[in-house]
């Protein structure tokens, strides 16, 4: 039985890890890019590395815009936990409020109309908690993502006839428009959602950006090829960090798909920024907790195609 206390303490713990420590996959992606830059672009990326070091040494948030902290929970089908799903949601809201004060995070969450701020990143529909499930498992994975950025995300209804050209154009449109002046704080992990209902398109793209690590490839070889092609296309724009002339725009590109309306090909683009903040913990039935930075969100079960599931 996984206890309420362990759930809350772990959720609190990963808040700090996400806000402070840059995930190693993203960091080495940028390290690799520095080699290809010079002048101001190089200075910017080197300063970012220093910033990550300062954050980890001082235990302070890497970016003071601590984004919109939220959770992704994957529950093993055999997992036993105290308090049920309501208990988990309560623990995550509690952890968000505590971590916001203690780290401290910026209490970014306000009412959209009245701008009221509870100063703890908790409110109506905040933090978001996304659920998924895993067969033959008795653990719970909790991931937190603090995605920043008022900029860098867009949605468009494309049609099957628009084809790969349409995808490439919309990809370029989004990168160019939000890359100028570095509004999206690139180099970014670019997530693309293709298909599904419109809301699914957005969710898949966001998850592709935030829940897959640099270097990870979609298991469909053709999609994986397209990921690499788009990454290269993005880096050939001639734009780097802060929109300065450079080559560092896309540290990786991830595509996730969902079956969609036969007449449409909706697409979304999301850019996970220089503060690609994510942290995951696995809570085992015996009370053990293991931490990591790869959420392993998109399991084969998540991407299943048919009515039943066989391992």
């Amino acid at each position, binding site marked *: 039985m996984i206890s309420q206390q362990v759930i809350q303490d772990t959720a609190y713990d990963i808040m700090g890890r996400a806000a402070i420590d840059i995930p190693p996959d993203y960091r080495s992606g940028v390290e690799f890019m520095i080699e290809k830059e010079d*002048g*101001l672009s*190089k*200075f*910017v990326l*080197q*300063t*970012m*590395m220093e*910033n*990550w070091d*300062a954050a980890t040494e*001082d235990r*302070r*948030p*890497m*970016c*003071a*815009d601590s984004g919109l902290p939220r959770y992704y929970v994957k529950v093993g089908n055999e997992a036993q936990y105290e308090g049920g799903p309501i208990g988990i949601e309560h623990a995550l809201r509690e952890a968000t409020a505590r971590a916001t*004060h203690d*780290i*401290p*995070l*910026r*209490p*970014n969450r*306000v009412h959209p109309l009245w*701008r*009221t*701020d509870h*100063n703890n990143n908790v409110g109506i529909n905040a933090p978001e908690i996304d659920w998924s499930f895993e067969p033959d498992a008795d653990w719970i994975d909790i991931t937190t993502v603090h995605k920043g950025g008022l*900029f860098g995300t867009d949605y*468009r209804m*494309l*049609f099957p*006839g*628009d084809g790969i*050209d*349409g995808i490439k*154009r*919309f990809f*370029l*449109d989004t990168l*160019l*428009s939000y890359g*100028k*002046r*570095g*509004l999206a*704080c690139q180099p970014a992990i670019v997530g693309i959602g293709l298909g599904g209902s419109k809301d699914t398109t957005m969710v898949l793209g966001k998850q592709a950006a935030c829940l897959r690590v640099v270097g990870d490839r979609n298991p469909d070889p053709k999609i994986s090829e397209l990921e690499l092609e788009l990454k290269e*296309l993005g880096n*050939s*724009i*001639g734009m780097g960090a*802060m*929109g*300065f*002339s450079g080559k560092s725009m896309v540290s990786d590109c991830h595509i996730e798909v969902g079956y969609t309306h036969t007449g449409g090909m909706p697409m979304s683009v999301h850019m996970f920024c*220089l*503060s690609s903040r994510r942290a995951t913990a696995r809570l085992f039935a015996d009370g053990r907790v293991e931490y990591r930075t790869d959420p392993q969100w998109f399991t084969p079960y998540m991407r299943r195609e048919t009515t039943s599931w066989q391992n």
Partner: protein
Amino acid sequence: MAELSEGQKVVRLQVPVSHDDIKDLEIGTVVYLDGVIYTGREGVYKRVIEDGHEIPLDLPAVSNANFHCSPAAAIEPDGSYNVGGVTATASFRFAKWMQRWFELSGAKIIIGKGGMSSSDYRELFVPAGAIYLTTVGYGTGALLGRGIRKVRQVEWFEELGNAQAMWVFEVENFGPFIVDSDLDGNSLFEQQAEQVNKNIESLYQGLKKPALSRYGETDDRNDELI
């Protein structure tokens, strides 16, 4: 400090700055600040300019550097402050208040993210004798947090909330920043965008347009969103 390429200039300025301190600064120069700076964004601008409240600080005597940001900070039960970091927010949204703000505050340095348009520089900044410094990256919250020596005061915390309140910081070796706009209104971002724009046409070559257009859609990708 990050390695600077040859010819890259670095300066350290004491705030409040004088006209002489900033008159020779060139775009692209790296800047570090010492002294006092304050945060002010839409919440503060609205309260002062639209609602007519007095600025609760003696500006520009205390400081003439306005940072467009909110800190990741908390006030402890004993009244002390815990400042984790500071990161700029995008400045272009504040253009409509800047003229009046320059008049009321005497600001000579605006610090933020992404700069403003060159017409804003010419029409608002040049007459006010002000320059624009952009943060680097932009997510250098931890490095900037290190440069904050002390929270001097926080104004309008109750009224505006943590993120929009006016925070006054004593800073030391606070940076790095890059000069985006000098006293003549030149813009580094626009200069760099021109470079980038040269390549755009070739990127789109051979890619056919989608069947359904969107209102206001343009083919001129030299345009900016701001």
